[in-house]
C-alpha cells in the first residue's frame, strides 16, 4: 500500500524555474539567436576568451574593438559625452517616431495635433517632453564633447579629419534642433524661426535666395512647415547618420580614442 505513494519530494519553485530556464536556453531557437560567446547563452562563463567573443560575435563589433586602451575606459577622461550624444540621438529617433504617428505638418493641423497629443494620447505629453528636453540636452552634450576633445588636444594628427567631421556633426545637430523648433507651430516656434531665418538672410550675395529656399517663400507659411518637417524627420537624420558612421569608424581607424595626456 505504502509503495504506491511516490516518495520523491515535490520539486520546489526554484527547481522548476531552473529547469525551465535550462530548457529555454538549451533550445535550438535560443541557440540560433544568441551566437557563441553571448552572455545570454547557456553555460556562459567569464573567461578572457568569452570576453572577446561577447564583442567579436555580436553586432557591437561594428562599434567597438575587442580590447581598448585602459585609460580609455576612465569616465573622467571622456565624461561619456560622445557616447551620450549618440545615445540621445537614438532616444530622439525613438520618441520622434512615436510623435510622427500623431502629427501632420500643415499650418491648419500642426498645432492642434500637438495639443491633442498632449491631452488625449497615452504618454503623449511625456514622450513630447522627452523629445524636446532630449534635443536640448543633445545640443549641449555635442557642444561639450567638442570642448572636451579640444582641451585634450585630441584633434591632432592622426585625428585631424575626424575633428572636421565632428564640426559638421555639430552643425547638423544645430540644424536638426532648429528645424524641429518650428514643428509645434506655436508662437514660440514661429517667431524663433523668423528671427533665426532672418539672421541667415544676412548671408552675403545669396542671402535672399538662401532664405527663400529655406522658407519655401518670402515668409514663413505652411510650405515652410512641410519643408522643415521633411528636413527634420528624413533628410537631416539621413545625412547625420552617414557622418556619424564615418566619425565612429575613424575613431577606430585613427587608433582608438586619444590620450592619455
Amino acid at each position, binding site marked *: 500500500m505504502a509503495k504506491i505513494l511516490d516518495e520523491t519530494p515535490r520539486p520546489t519553485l526554484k527547481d522548476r524555474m531552473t529547469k525551465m530556464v535550462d530548457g529555454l536556453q538549451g533550445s535550438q531557437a535560443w541557440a540560433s539567436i544568441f551566437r557563441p560567446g553571448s552572455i545570454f547563452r547557456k553555460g556562459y562563463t567569464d573567461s578572457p576568451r568569452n570576453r*572577446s567573443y561577447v564583442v567579436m560575435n555580436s553586432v557591437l563589433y561594428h562599434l567597438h574593438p575587442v580590447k581598448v586602451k585602459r585609460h580609455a575606459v576612465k569616465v573622467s577622461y571622456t565624461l561619456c559625452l560622445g557616447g551620450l550624444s549618440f*545615445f540621445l540621438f537614438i*532616444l530622439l529617433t525613438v520618441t520622434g517616431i512615436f510623435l510622427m504617428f500623431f502629427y501632420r505638418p500643415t499650418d491648419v493641423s500642426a498645432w492642434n495635433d500637438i495639443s491633442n497629443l498632449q491631452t488625449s494620447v497615452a504618454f503623449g505629453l511625456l514622450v513630447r517632453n522627452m523629445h524636446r528636453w532630449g534635443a536640448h540636452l543633445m545640443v549641449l552634450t555635442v557642444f561639450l564633447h567638442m570642448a572636451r576633445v579640444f*582641451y*585634450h588636444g585630441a584633434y591632432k594628427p592622426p585625428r585631424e579629419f575626424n575633428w572636421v567631421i565632428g*564640426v559638421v556633426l555639430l552643425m547638423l545637430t544645430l540644424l536638426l534642433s532648429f528645424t524641429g523648433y518650428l514643428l509645434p507651430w*506655436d508662437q514660440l516656434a514661429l517667431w524663433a524661426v523668423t528671427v533665426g531665418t532672418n*539672421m541667415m538672410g*544676412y*548671408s552675403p550675395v545669396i542671402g535672399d535666395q538662401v532664405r527663400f529656399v529655406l522658407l519655401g517663400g518670402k515668409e514663413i507659411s505652411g510650405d515652410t512647415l512641410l519643408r522643415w518637417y521633411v528636413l527634420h524627420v528624413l533628410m537631416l537624420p539621413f545625412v547625420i547618420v552617414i557622418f556619424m558612421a564615418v566619425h565612429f569608424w575613424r575613431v577606430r581607424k585613427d587608433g582608438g580614442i586619444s590620450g592619455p595626456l
Partner: protein
Amino acid sequence: MTEIPEHLLKRAKAARAQTSDAPADADAPAGGGVAVKEKVASAVSAAPARSGPLGTGPGGNTQRLLTVVKSGSIQDVKASPVDKVHTWPHLLAAEFVAALACMSFTFFFSVFVNAPLLQQANINKTPNPSKAPWYFLGLQELLTMFHPMIAGVTIPGVGLVALIFAPYIDKNPSNKPEDRKFAISLMTVHLMFWAVLVIIGSFFRGPGFNFTLPWRDGLFFEL
C-alpha cells in the same frame, strides 16, 4: 648601410683566426681583415681545397653572414606595449550605466517639466520680445551691437572656419596642457565669449530686446 656591431666583428675575426691557424691554407686572409665581403670570397675560393662538400665555409659550415640588418631599418617596429582591457565588461558596462543615467534623467525631468506650447502661430501677432532658439541667442545678441554683415556673417563665419581648420592651424604636436597654453587660452576665451553672449541674450533681454534684470523684471525666455 648600417654599421656592423662590434661583437659580431670580433666573433668573425676570432673564427677567421681559428680557421687560418688549423689548416695550413695559403689563401687564408692575413691580419684579420674587416670586410665581410672579402671573407665570403675567400670562403668560396677556399672551399675546394678542403675536404668538405662544395660551397661550404672554412669550418665546414654551410651558412654565412651576408649582412647585418638592424631592427627598425627595414620594418618600422611599433611594438611598444599598450595596456589594454577587454571592452566587455569594462567599457560596455560603463556605457550602459551612462546611457541608463542619461535616460532616467531625461525621463524624470520630462515627468516634472512640460515642454512649452504657446498659442497657435499667428503671423499678425509678433510677441515682444521675439527670440531665436537659445543656441542662436549669442548671434542675436551680436546683431544688436554690430552691422548684420559683421555680426551675422563675418564673426560667426570666421569663428566657424577657424573651428573647422583648427587641427591644420595648430601645428603644436603636444597634447599636454602645459605645452598648449596659447591654444587653450584662445579656445577658452572663444567659448566664454559665446557663453556670455548666450546668457545675456537669454536672461538679460526683455521687451524690445532691451537690457533687463531677470530678478527685477522676470524671465523672457522659453526653451
